[in-house]
């Protein structure tokens, strides 16, 4: 039986019915990984031995007649900016090439209690800065639908792993779209929960007030199940919400009757890809036909979101990344004195994009510029939040494209940083407002590259997002198609 192409909920059923063993499943996924990883390069570290041991332990539980949890025995991948005790965590940066955390991120601790099988650490743009995974300090990841294309980013490795079958589910992180956009590019489901819904303890910080961990899965059912595991307050993260966490699987119902879905005109931007616009509008029509009411809404400050985001995120990043200095951990490039050592280490081991953002951030925070740039951006952030608060007085969910284009060719955009930044227009506003968002496959471009529908929810209302996304997903079959590893290299 081919197993790597099935979603977790089907595999869980097979495990419970003892039709397959966790070891069999893990071997199947690892074999698939062997077959595709050379082309996709989704992983920075592969933990085969650990995976097989974990699988064996689950099989023993099953043999002993124990009830197993949803993720038990299910192969998953963790983005390599999430700390795993004893397993190298690099953030795709040369500066942390050999860093082995002495602790687990809180999400990893939560996952481990479910006994999943962790197959490896997924590639990303260095320190999660980028939207294509081309900024990895080691190698770019390729899109499983067309290996000449980028998988999106920064959680490109996580999305590509799930799309190519070398993991059944993955964890990503989303600061400005880094879960949703690669999910869209790779034809999988990706959710950024509300800021604070999932603990950030152990997620290597890029921009602390924007970062959030979330699931990348084959379908909405898996998304709800993974979210159930990772959501909830954590004493180690003071910004994690105390709000009660509902059972998200209860939202896996096909019902959008009377649901008000907002359509923000500002998200259908000039220069948007025709195929994307068509697919997204079709999806919205589909939701309408399923009983939802479509309402036009306006989010007038959307056009300022890129400027706001690219001042706030680099400013936070500039301080967050000060700790990589070659003193007490990480790689070191020597110098005659400490200042020289720090400067050498940082100059030679950070990649170009990371350095660029550090420079932008320190410029925006430096004496004389703080008010004009950083403080101004914090104020506009308030206005962007307010746009959503106003819109959500009229609607339950907002629908929009996840990204203005499908996946583009590797190397096509990388030389123009500003052009890259502009690609984030549909995703960054949610991070600024702290809102939850989910990307679900909603069709293909003419070149058969996946397109994502983005649904945006009220704060802490992931449940309605899941219900809406599930209803839409079940009305068509995009989520059932697996990537074919096309492209010239395939």
């Amino acid at each position: 039986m081919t197993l790597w192409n099935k979603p977790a909920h089907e595999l869980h059923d097979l495990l419970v019915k003892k039709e397959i063993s966790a070891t069999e499943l893990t071997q199947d996924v690892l074999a698939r990984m062997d077959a595709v990883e050379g082309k996709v390069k989704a992983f920075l570290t592969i933990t085969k031995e650990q995976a097989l041991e974990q699988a064996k332990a689950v099989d023993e539980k099953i043999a002993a007649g124990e009830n197993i949890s949803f993720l038990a025995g299910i192969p998953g991948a963790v983005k390599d900016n999430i700390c795993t005790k004893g397993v190298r965590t690099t953030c795709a940066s040369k500066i942390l090439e050999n860093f082995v955390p002495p602790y687990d991120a809180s999400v990893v601790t939560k996952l481990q209690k479910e006994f999943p099988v962790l197959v490896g650490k997924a590639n990303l743009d260095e320190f999660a800065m980028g939207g294509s995974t081309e900024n990895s300090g080691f190698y770019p990841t390729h899109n499983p639908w067309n290996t000449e294309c980028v998988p999106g980013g920064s959680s490109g490795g996580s999305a590509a792993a799930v799309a190519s079958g070398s993991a059944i589910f993955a964890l990503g992180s989303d600061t400005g779209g880094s879960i949703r956009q690669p999910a869209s590019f790779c034809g999988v489901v990706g959710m950024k929960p509300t800021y604070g819904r999932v603990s950030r303890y152990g997620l290597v910080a890029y921009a602390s007030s924007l970062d959030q961990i979330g699931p990348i899965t084959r379908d909405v059912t898996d998304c709800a199940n993974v979210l159930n595991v990772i959501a909830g307050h954590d004493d180690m993260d003071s910004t994690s919400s105390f709000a009660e966490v509902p059972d998200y699987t209860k939202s896996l119902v096909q019902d959008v009757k009377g649901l008000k879905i907002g359509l923000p005109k500002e998200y259908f931007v000039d220069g948007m890809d025709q195929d994307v616009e068509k697919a997204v509008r079709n999806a919205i029509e589909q939701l309408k036909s399923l009983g939802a009411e479509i309402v036009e809404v306006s989010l007038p400050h959307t056009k300022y979101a890129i400027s706001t985001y690219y001042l706030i995120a680099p400013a936070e990043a500039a301080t967050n990344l000060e700790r990589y200095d070659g003193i007490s951990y990480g790689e070191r490039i020597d110098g005659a004195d400490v200042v020289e050592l720090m400067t050498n280490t940082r100059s030679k081991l950070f990649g170009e994009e990371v350095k660029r953002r550090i420079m932008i951030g320190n410029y925006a925070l430096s004496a004389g510029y703080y008010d004009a740039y950083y403080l101004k951006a914090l104020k506009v952030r308030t206005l962007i939040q307010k746009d959503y608060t106003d819109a959500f007085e009229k609607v339950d969910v907002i629908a929009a494209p996840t990204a203005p284009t499908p996946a583009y060719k590797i190397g096509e955009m990388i030389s123009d940083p500003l052009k890259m930044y502009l690609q984030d227009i549909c995703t960054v506003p949610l991070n600024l407002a702290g809102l939850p968002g989910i990307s679900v496959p909603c069709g293909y471009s003419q070149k058969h590259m996946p397109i994502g529908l983005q649904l945006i929810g009220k704060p802490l209302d992931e449940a309605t997002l899941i219900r809406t996304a599930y209803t839409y997903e079940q009305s068509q079959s995009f989520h059932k198609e697996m990537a074919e590893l096309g492209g010239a290299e395939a």
Partner: protein
Amino acid sequence: MKYEAVIGLEIHCELKTKTKIFCGCETGFGGDQNTHVCPVCLGLPGVLPTINKRVVEFGIKAGLATNCTINKFSKFDRKNYYYPDLPKNWQTSQYDLPIAEHGWVDIDVEGEKKRVRLTRIHMEEDAGKLVHSGNTIKDSASSNVDYNRTGVPLLEIVSEPDMHTAEEARTYMEKIKAIMEYIDVSNCRMEEGNLRADVNVSIRPVGSKELGTRTEMKNINSFKSLVDAIDYEIDRQTEVLEDGGHIVQETRTWDPNRGITLSMRSKEDAHDYRYMPEPDLPPIVTTDEQIEAYRKELPELPDARRERLEKEYGLSDYDAGVITASRPMAEYFDEVVAGGADAKLAANWIMGELAKHLNAENKTIVDSPVEPARLAAMIQMITKGTISSKIAKTVFEEMWTSKDAPEEIVKAKGLVQITDTKAIEEIVDKVIADNPKPVEDYKGGNKKAIGALVGQVMKQSKGKANPQMVNQLLAQKLG
């Protein structure tokens, strides 16, 4: 030209919490290097801080005890600078919304009351320690870093530049130390670095309102260094100006061995700390009710206690000031008085014999071998006339080295005062007979000559004769 110094202090006060400000590592002094550390205080990738509730409580109490306004909305900020003792390369501190602002304390200098305003009190984390391979940082080819102290909670207490002499600065710092001890937020052990000050000094022509260029001396950790460094710096700056030079704004270091301040590096590369709000720590919001609740928990503070000692016991302003300058001493005093001792005698004995003995053995009052109860019992014996003050000194010596009660010591050594008129009369008669010269002098009008005779009687009675009775009898007999 005559110059006047302008002095401001930034006092760093280490708080006596069990755990660090942002993680659960213990704060204990000592401990092997890098054993009180965890991912959070090591600043490892991915970690997040959590605020120790007690630190906020201590910050608010310190603010209330120094007449500050408590900011009902306060937050933490990142102060960015690179130094190997700072694992994140920023110090989590407070910038524009510190926990407390706009306070004051009164100090007494040479009998005059003076008010020193406090700009602010903010909470922050301490840095780690560098251990150098050479004698000084500059001649060390390498250094070793110990992060045990990283994240120990500090209050930074910033004064306005309201002081003008080293003595004022010392008195101010002693006052802050006393207050922090009273409200029990810090051990204030200067030798362990619990309390240290950055001192800003500038001078200006007397009468001028404008501030001169200031220099800063960091990490002054004893009262003596504070006074010496300020005096040295005032002299140095005066000399520079009198020679027609100008003061360079810079950080200087105090070398206590050589008794001079030295330029570290002038601020050619002025710090741009790029303060930004700490996004990982939600703000601290305090209500009036909470502030009042903390106010109620405050103990009697030094000024109030001093006033009470003056009113209740008639102590002099000076004595009350000395007794209340440290909480342990004030508490010791209270216990002695509660034990039945006369308050003025208690003050005299504490400030006199007890202080002398403690100083000689470098002990603090908390470690005094003579407990308040025994001192109280001894003072009562003086009041009752059982022993003289002079004998009491012998008894005190005994108590210092033994655990015996004063009554037992007096009994065992036969030190009970002789109050039997007949017994004293015998000695007096003998002394009059044996000392014709002073007797003659006295009779000849030199009334002071009686002193020699009293001395003789006391000597022959081995100090046990009641001095008042001796005086009386001698005067009687000599007519």
